[in-house]
């Protein structure tokens, strides 16, 4: 079992604003355009491969699919009028423009790679600052639209898959415990803190008073603790509940490879189980990493995006079952 089975992705986001413009909540249409132009120029000076997309040019399905792929935030999706984003060719860096702040630099990485993400974000930030005048205060740091981001403007987060802790009902207690350490916890899909597919996101709560490296180190330390707990729970399950688990995993696999229509909720629960099964070596026919990609692929808007049109929930459930059957047989 690899740590990367448990920590699926890492993400670092930096909030920045231009000194000489009002903040997005207060901007005119002309101002949003000139902010977009300034940021595009600043990036282009160093790297011409970033692609600029205006939110107004995207359909609802395309927009929501970008959210499901974690390339843009739900808040940017609401900025139909003045919003835009620059995306690097490998899709690891996304610079969102005129979201809540003028600039949100977001970098994504596989596994526990917060330090690499920070280096990358930091680098893009330096490039932007060469041509852009940032709103910065020597006492309060980077001035953001919302005071809860002020200071470093940084949110560092990891996405965790915690099936063993979840099925043994330990996740709530553990996650409540870590939320006492100044860390925010939420479910990745689903509303509020409820998690579908046993996927959780943890991130730093405070943004002021500590350097970026320290904030990141804290998330890494906490994540390592959670990894250990998830691993020891898996070992405990392996020793004491092997037969029940084996039955659960094969039933999940049986359903997924035979269902003719399936909701996102049910699919996420079952995929989470067979991901766990493969990582524990009980269901060797599937590979965990591919299962996570499948989890993203079967989100409602991603299915519609492939069809290039909005399809009815009933059609979507059929399509979803078809994709899962095809992919699981292919991965076999």
């Amino acid at each position, binding site marked *: 079992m690899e740590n990367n089975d448990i920590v699926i992705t890492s993400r670092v986001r930096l909030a920045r604003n231009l000194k000489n413009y009002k*903040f997005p909540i207060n901007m005119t249409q002309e101002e949003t355009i000139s902010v977009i132009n300034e940021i595009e120029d600043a990036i282009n000076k160093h790297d011409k491969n970033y692609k600029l997309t205006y939110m107004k040019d995207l359909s609802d399905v395309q927009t929501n699919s970008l959210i499901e792929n974690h390339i843009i935030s739900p808040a940017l999706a609401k900025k139909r009028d003045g919003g835009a984003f620059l995306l690097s060719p490998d899709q690891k860096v996304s610079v969102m423009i005129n979201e809540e702040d003028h600039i949100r630099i977001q970098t994504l990485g596989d596994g526990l790679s917060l330090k690499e993400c920070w280096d990358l974000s930091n680098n893009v930030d*330096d490039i932007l600052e060469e041509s852009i*005048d940032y709103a910065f205060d*020597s006492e*309060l*740091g980077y001035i953001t*639209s919302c005071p809860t981001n002020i*200071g470093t403007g940084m949110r560092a987060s990891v996405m965790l898959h915690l099936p063993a802790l979840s099925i043994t009902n330990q996740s709530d207690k553990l996650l409540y415990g870590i939320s006492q350490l100044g860390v925010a916890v939420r479910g990745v899909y689903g509303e509020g803190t409820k998690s579908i597919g046993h996927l959780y996101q943890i991130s730093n709560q405070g943004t*002021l*008073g500590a350097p970026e490296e320290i904030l990141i180190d804290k998330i890494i330390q906490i994540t390592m603790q959670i990894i250990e707990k998830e691993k020891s729970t898996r070992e405990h399950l392996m020793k004491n509940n092997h037969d029940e688990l084996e039955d659960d995993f094969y039933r999940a696999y049986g359903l997924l490879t035979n269902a003719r229509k399936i909701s996102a909720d049910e699919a996420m629960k079952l995929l989470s189980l067979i991901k766990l099964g493969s990582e524990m070596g009980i269901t060797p026919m599937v590979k965990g990493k591919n299962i996570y990609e499948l989890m993203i692929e079967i989100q409602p808007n991603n299915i519609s995006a492939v069809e290039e049109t909005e399809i009815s929930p009933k059609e979507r459930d059929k399509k979803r079952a078809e994709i899962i059957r095809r992919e699981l047989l292919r991965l076999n």
Partner: protein
Amino acid sequence: MLCNECGKNEANVHVTHIINGKKTESHLCEECAKKNQAILNSSFSMENLFSAMLNNAFNNKTALPAKGCPNCGMTYDTFRSTGKFGCSHCIDSFKTRVMPVIKSIQGYDRHTGKIPKRAGGSYRVQMDIEKMKNDLRNAVECEKYELAAELRDKIHELENKLKGDE
């Protein structure tokens, strides 16, 4: 039956609450029910918490600029209800009201992280000098005199540069 909230539309959503054993019923129209649902579902986020804390800071009667933020015109009331600044000057305009809340939520009131090269200006140099002075103390304690001499020269160089800039 008419909606309990608006009293205009026909009530077609019936909700029963049992709180501490006490049962209450409400009959709402679809529109009002949606509004109530939105309140129930709104997530408990830092942003919401911030707005709520600003609203609760009744004791803070410090003066506010009469016409809102001189730079962008945003009033304190608008800021309080949205929880979002209108421009980079708002924080100075509303400082006496906002800083206590920032401090209680963030736990700190001073940035110690990254300083941008240009916007940071001489402040960045000052921080570099502070850091080098700290390194110098450590170097002397560990009897690394060569490193200490190097740091001392760099500190002099930066201090002279700062004086030159002024």
